[in-house]
C-alpha cells in the first residue's frame, strides 16, 4: 500500500541562508549548507510546517509525497 507523508521542500534559489528555519525545526532536519542555502533531510522531516511558517522569504512548502 502506498503511504503519503508530508515533507518540507525549499525553493533554494531564493534562500538567504538566514537559518530561521533551522531554529524552528523540532527534529533538527534542516542544515545550512556551506552558508549558501537550507537543505532538508526528508528522512528526518516530519512535515510539521514550523519552518515554512517562520521562513522570512516564504520559500518553504509542505507537500505530500509517497513515502
Amino acid at each position, binding site marked *: 500500500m502506498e503511504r503519503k507523508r508530508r515533507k518540507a521542500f525549499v525553493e533554494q534559489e*531564493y534562500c*538567504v*541562508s*538566514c*537559518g*530561521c528555519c*533551522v*531554529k524552528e525545526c*523540532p527534529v533538527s532536519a534542516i542544515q*545550512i549548507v*556551506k*552558508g*549558501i542555502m537550507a537543505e532538508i533531510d526528508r528522512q528526518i522531516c516530519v512535515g510539521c510546517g514550523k519552518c515554512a*511558517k*517562520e*521562513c*522570512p*522569504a*516564504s*520559500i518553504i512548502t509542505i507537500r505530500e509525497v509517497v513515502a
Partner: protein
Amino acid sequence: MKNRKKKHWYDYMWIVSLSYLLLGFFNILFAWLGLLCFFIPLINSAVKGNKAYCNRYCGRGQLFGLLGGTFGLSRRKDIPGWMKSKWFRYGFLIFFLTMFAQMLVNTWLVFAGAESLREAVTLLWTFKLPWHWAYHTRTLTPWVGQFAFGFYSVMLTSTVLGFVTMILYRPRSWCVYCPMGTMTQLICKAKAHE
C-alpha cells in the same frame, strides 16, 4: 513531543543589540562598538565559509524574531516577490555600501578639517534628527564623533527598515534583504567555488 529547544547563551544576543541602540541615545561614542557586528560576520564567512553569525549570534535578527514573533508585532504575511529577488537584494546592498562610503567620506572631511562636525543622526539617509545630547566629549578629535554619528545613523536606519518590514510581513523579513546577510552569503558562495 519534545518541548522547546534548549536555550544557549547566544540566544540572548538580542539584549546586546537592544543595549547598543539605547546606549547610542545617551552617548553616541558607543556607536563605534557596532564595527564588531560589521567585521565579525565578514571575517567569519571569509575564514570558515559559513553563516554562523546569522544562524546563531546575530542579535538584530533575534530582536525582530522576538518582537514580531513572541510579542506578535507582525502581520505574518508573505514578503512580496520582488523583495526576495536577486535584483533587489543586490541592489539594496550596493545602495547600502554607497551610503556607507559616503559616511566614510564625511568622516574624512571632518578629519581633514574641510567640514565641521554635525551633531545629528541621519535617518533613512534623509532626515536629520537632533542628537547633540549624546555627545559629551567635545575635547575629542571631531572625526571620532562624526564617525559615531554616521555609524549610528546606519544602524538606526536599518533597524527602522527592519521594524517596518517586520510589521508588514514576517518577523525576520529584514533578513531577506539585510546587506550583511547578503554579503556573507556572497562570500560563502565565492568560498564554495574555490
